[in-house]
């Protein structure tokens, strides 16, 4: 088990390492002079000021040197300063990151609570009208653009019915974005669960359990569900990453003050230090969550725990 986790940890560190390189290169891939583009929207920036910024970003030095400067500052917890307002990027991100994580976790919970039971039921009723109906619903759910679903929910529950606030940062405000993000992912979980359970149902050990004379309920609960959930756990890390990606859009619909909304604003304003910080944060969060889930998986699956 330790070697499995060590492997996953190495992979995670590698991911972060590659991200730092990509993030450093990002600014150089911009066609034209990044500093000029950054300041194109604010009037009255003198060439001297721009030169200063270029220096402070280290853009006058060779790329490898820039990379090591970037990593060096990173290790000190310094992600640079925003172009607009000159605040430390780390502070700006840390201030909003909890909001995004709360949203993603809530959505994940909704997706699992709705999707897994539906998928399990459909697998159990495989080939029946229940299965067909549920799976067509799931395809429809996956096909629903979540930005549209968000708008509809916003229109009915916030604008039309007035049950929930349109925007803001309170707990009630979490409901609509979390439901939006959760519903579209519930469909994915339903499909994942169904195929995993159908896979298990066709295994020999299920026949063994039936042949032993176990009642059907026990076979399903003990033999099928346990074995079928393990692959789902291994997929959850990736699903969490998708949840974080989806949050970018959903945050913008509901004006939820998370890092996704911050990132889109930064792209409009060409505030590259924020974009760099955002991508790095995203990678770190995804890596941490997947390593946590890998640990859960390694503990639950005896084939890994006892190896």
């Amino acid at each position, binding site marked *: 088990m330790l070697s499995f986790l060590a492997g996953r940890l190495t*992979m995670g560190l*590698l*991911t972060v390492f*590659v*991200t730092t390189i*990509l993030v450093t290169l*990002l600014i150089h*891939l*911009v*066609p034209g002079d990044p500093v000029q583009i950054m300041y194109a929207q604010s009037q009255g920036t003198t060439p001297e000021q721009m030169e200063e910024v270029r220096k402070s970003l280290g853009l006058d030095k060779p790329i490898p040197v820039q990379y090591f400067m970037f990593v060096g500052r990173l290790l000190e917890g310094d992600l640079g300063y925003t172009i607009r307002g000159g605040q430390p990027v780390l502070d700006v991100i840390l201030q909003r990151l909890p909001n995004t994580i709360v949203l993603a976790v809530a959505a994940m919970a909704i997706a699992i609570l709705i999707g897994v039971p539906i998928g399990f039921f459909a697998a159990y009723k495989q*080939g029946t009208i229940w299965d*067909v109906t549920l799976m*067509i619903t799931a*395809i*429809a759910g*996956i*096909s*629903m*653009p979540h*930005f*549209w679903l968000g*708008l*509809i929910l*916003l*229109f009915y529950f916030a*604008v039309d019915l007035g049950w929930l606030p349109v925007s803001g940062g309170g707990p009630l405000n979490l409901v609509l974005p979390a439901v939006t993000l959760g519903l*579209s*992912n519930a469909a*994915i979980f339903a*499909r*994942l669960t169904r*195929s995993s359970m159908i896979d298990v149902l066709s295994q020999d050990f299920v026949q063994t359990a039936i042949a032993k004379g176990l009642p059907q309920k026990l076979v399903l609960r003990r033999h099928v569900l346990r074995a079928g959930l393990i692959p789902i756990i291994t*997929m959850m*890390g*990736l*699903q969490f*990453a*998708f949840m*974080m*990606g*989806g949050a*970018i*859009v959903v945050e*913008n619909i509901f004006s939820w003050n998370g890092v996704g909304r911050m*990132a*889109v604003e*930064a*792209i*409009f304003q060409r505030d*590259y230090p924020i*974009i760099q910080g955002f*991508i790095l944060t*995203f*990678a770190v969060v*995804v*890596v941490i969550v*997947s390593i946590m889930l890998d640990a859960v998986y390694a503990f639950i699956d005896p084939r890994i725990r006892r190896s």
Partner: protein
Amino acid sequence: MGEITVNTPGLSAESTQASPGFWRRLVRTPNGFIGLLIVTILIVCAFGADFLAPYNPTKMGSGPRFLPPGSDFLLGTDEFGRDMLSRILYGSRLTLLIGAVAVGISLTAGMLLGMVAAYCRGWIETVLMRSADILFSFTETLIALACVAVLGPSLQNAVLAVSIAGIPFYARTCYSASLVEVSKPYFEASIAAGAGPFRMVFHHLLPNVLPTMIVVATLGVSTAILAAAGLSFLGLGAQPPTPEWGYMLAGSRDYINRAPWLMTIPGIAIAITVLGFNLLGDGFRTALDPKERDR
């Protein structure tokens, strides 16, 4: 791309080359039939937009502003008095183009990378597939966003961003499908017969992974369309006055009370299109899968 259940590498080739029965099997599955129907209608709309559209999609003041759906303007008009029906029709052309171009680019690049990695093995495989794994865990949304951040917001850049973002997914899928084939005796037999790399990859590997990849690519069209519409919705893709559905949806927010149809119509259009490709992909999978076929 949220859907990674594409566990199709098991698609046996046996069922796929005997294609006479393929289309019949496809339309026999409910998913395949509805999917094919929707996609066909979409293609007709896209090609026939010039004849079908009653008005110029970008001309302001074709009618009064905010006219609800009615007899003159079947789907109503928007905040500039443009005809919604015409905009939706021309939008279908854009949407299909976006889907086709984005999937075309990422499928081609991804398949090449995946097949090369599976065929070459060794350090090439490690480097290519580890990179794909890392990029894949970033999710397509983030990669697309980063690309747009670099290139700047525009429809072309959004399509390019979505294409690049899709490559890791296709590379991984094609890689795992290829691994299955590469380890089969027929593959080794051809190597033992003295076949070179080009013959192995393009004569043996490509035809055998293609059915799997067609399924994946059909499903991928929906993902690409959703991703591009999402970028346009955020304002990072299509710019005014392009009749792009995601962008139209974004604009509708300000008139959510006054003209709800501005929100409903493009949303339905996107959802039906995406549904069509999802159903078609699902139908392809069922029609190609011998296990499903026997039901």
